[in-house]
């Protein structure tokens, strides 16, 4: 499956995602410049992490005006797979492709560390190879991962099973202590109602080789590949 990795000014995890796709998963991948509207026949789009436009206004706020985001929206409307990682998740929120917004982390500081997340919905194209309740070890690195949404909309999100990942203890319990940023109901990743757009704060590309301490992220990419090979 061919992956497209977007490049915004200030993205800095695009090479990491590219490396995971090309070298670890051995799938074709291409970079797509923010000024472009041509998604180059990719079957999945990764909106990578980093600091698009320095995060100077609000995270993801400026990137959403890029020409490429118009193309990504049309791609998503047609059912294409879109994965937003960290800053990419924030861009998807700002673009309205996913509901909600990010606040500054509860501790007000950038947090970089390994966390555990629990797979809450294994019936998405991103988690098909996981079991529900599986615990993944995966790194985070962000200043604004404190997800928020008003109560009604949040209930809808839960009802639709759009919460895909939650922060948890290494044993899979959802506790306040295992929440690294104050995110509502420990949310670490959500999808759209149709399930083809996923935003997540943790970095699967940083958990894709044994040398990096975890390979759990590979299952996410493999799930994506498998979901399309079944079509």
């Amino acid at each position: 499956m061919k992956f497209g990795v977007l490049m915004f000014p200030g993205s800095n995890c695009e090479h990491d995602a590219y490396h995971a796709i090309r070298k670890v998963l051995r799938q074709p991948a291409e970079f797509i410049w923010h000024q472009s509207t041509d998604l180059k026949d990719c079957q999945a789009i990764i909106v990578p992490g980093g600091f698009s436009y320095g995060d100077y206004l609000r995270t993801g706020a400026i990137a959403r005006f890029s020409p490429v985001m118009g193309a990504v929206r049309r791609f998503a409307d047609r059912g294409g797979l879109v994965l937003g990682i960290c800053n990419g998740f924030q861009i998807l929120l700002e673009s309205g492709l996913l509901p909600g917004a990010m606040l500054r982390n509860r501790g007000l500081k950038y947090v970089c560390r390994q966390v555990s997340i629990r797979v809450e919905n294994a019936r998405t194209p991103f988690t098909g190879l996981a079991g529900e309740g599986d615990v993944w070890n995966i790194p985070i690195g962000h200043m604004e991962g404190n997800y928020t949404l008003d109560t009604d909309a949040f209930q809808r999100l839960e009802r639709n099973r759009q919460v895909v990942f939650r922060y948890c203890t290494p044993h899979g319990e959802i506790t306040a202590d295992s929440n690294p940023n104050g995110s509502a109901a420990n949310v670490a990743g959500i999808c759209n109602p149709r399930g083809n757009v996923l935003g997540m704060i943790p970095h699967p590309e940083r958990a894709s080789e044994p040398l990096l301490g975890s390979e759990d992220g590979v299952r996410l990419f493999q799930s994506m590949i498998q979901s399309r090979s079944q079509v």
Partner: protein
Amino acid sequence: MQANPAITAEVLEQHNLTHAEYDRILSILGRSPNLTELGIFSVMWSEHCSYKSSKLHLKRLPTQGPQVLQGPGENAGIVDIGDGYAVAFKIESHNHPSFVEPYQGAATGVGGILRDIFTMGARPIAAMNSLRFGPPDQPRNRRIMEGVVAGIAGYGNCFGVPTVGGEVVFEECYSQNPLVNAFALGLFRKDRIFYGKAVGIGNPVIYVGAKTGRDGIHGATMASAEFDEASESKRPNVQVGDPFLEKLLLEACLEAMKTGAVVGIQDMGAAGLTCSTCEMGGRADTGIEIDLARVPQREKGMTPYEIMLSESQERMLLVAAKGREEEIFRIFRKWEIDAVAIGEVTGDGMLRILDRGREVAEIPNRALTDEAPLYRRPVAAPARVPPSPTPAGALSNDWGKLLECFLASPNLSSREWVYRQYDHMVRTNTVQVPGADAAVVRVKNSRKALAMCLDGNGRYCRQDPRVGAQLAVAESCRNLVCAGARPLAATNCLNMGNPEKPEIMWQMTQVVEGMAEACRALGTPVTGGNVSLYNETLGEGIDPTPVIGMVGLIEPLSRLRGSWFVREGHRVVLLGPLVGQPTGYSSAVRHHLARLQPSRGNGTDLYTGWVGRLPCPPLDLDLEVRVQRTCREGIERDLILSAHDCSDGGLAVALAEMGFSRFGAGTLGADILLPPTEEVGEVLFAEYPSRILVTVEEENLVALEKIAALQGVPVTPLGRVVPEVLSVRRPGSVVLERSVVSLEEIWRNCLGGLFADPL
């Protein structure tokens, strides 16, 4: 030429120039300088740019070796790591700016060192920082530290370089003068190195990056003068960093370099446009002529003086091959960065500055660089401080409590509160995250990885600057060796007081001597560094603090080792002496321990307050080399499974640390049996150098002992890895016994607890 305001004694003093220096300017020019020229001389001849007090001494450092591709003198040193790859690395201080504006001062320090690396064509792949503050129980010190750490994080995280290691030290002497030293390392192919040389007469000189504003004018001269109360109020304009622009600048510069149209490039650091023009010309023996009217400007009405001395960040100067400018401009347009031809390379060796065609300054380039004044300042050893008498009175025997006290010291506790704020994983190369002896970053598409660390010890250097510097070099090499690396080369930052004081100059000569000896013995040439002088406030100097940055190669990557216990049942072995020359350590520590108030924590930092003042241990360089060789060979032959050096806090702290949990793994303890012959306090807590704790499989112990015997290195099997409990026994008695979880909690929560109340 400009109208010439009178150059009075006062004007000279404002520019930190002496009368003798002024006379020299007169004879170089054969006339009196105008104010712009005077400003240019003053920044280039400042301590910060000219190294006028230290240069003669630094010449004594070893700088050669088959691995060294570029020694001191360029923007960064370069070392060959084989298979066509090379790394560039360097360390820089940003002490004064970080005191004035902690966040921006530290952030721009990171920005500056990153530019030093990518200006050579290398992509930065790792950063580290060495930080020193006053005691963290004082709110002002905490506020400075909070700002500094946030600034380093803010810049490095946004730029996208992993900050993988460093050190944090608290000592009273840094209260008024924190030290912020930033290190960066970049990777490239060794046939793609770029230099800061303005070659090719007629080639265009191109300005790229941020617009010039009135930022930090006189920053370079400020960094060369002591702080006093007046400077608090007439503080100069501090620069604000723009990491987003720097990230674009990086990408654009590396892309431009690929075209082959760039013939020379240099970042604009301290002394901005002045320094980059005359240094690029000086190195190539050419002249440079620029017109200031073409320099992109952020503010209106800037004078030539201001434009030449501005320290606006995120700017570079490059020299292009004539006729190929457009290739470069196109790339900078793509990244939406200003790029403007502002002049050209000439053949006359002059720095010629025009303003709308009118000449405003003309100075020979070399007069500003190679021919800047050098001083052999007076040196005088201070009177020896008599060692504090061995205290009399009751001695405590509560070794478990002593270990807890040590682990609760801000100087020995976990640094997680700091490095958690740094993105240490971006670029997915970090195979040893912060928390180990050395950080390790792999080189993708190869079997190589790079190990690196920063080490300094002001408190030892205060007592014996020569041995202190040796200890710092030895420790940094030892740290790399523990990770499975072969140390390659060093960079260093000398943080000292006022060089006009003979005893400070004595410290410098001693530190350089010690560093040179140790680097020679350990085979790690010095490829560059930085000197930061005048680190004093109100006449009170800091401890002389050389910070060593060491870089080593791990190849193949399977030699990578962690500094923690791997599995229950492994043998725990000490390489190196169980004790060294007696230091009186044990009785002093026990004495203080006996007097310690039961309320552990709150302000009673036994380690920093008392132990930190005990004498500097002697170092046997020859033994050190052999211990490190033993460890390396043990790793290369797959005998040693993990290794941790014993440094601050001694053997006991190192043992505890080896058992602490890492993500996804539980805690492990050790069951240690000490021989009855030695004094417990000396073995466990004294800071003897040349000691490494390693773990091995039972059946490999003999093979390791053989290697050690060949090297003449003492080996002591101490015990084994067990679950959960750290216990130290002697035949017939228990010395200490603690659950590792409880020790870890003390260690892990110290800094976090101190900073729990945000300021």
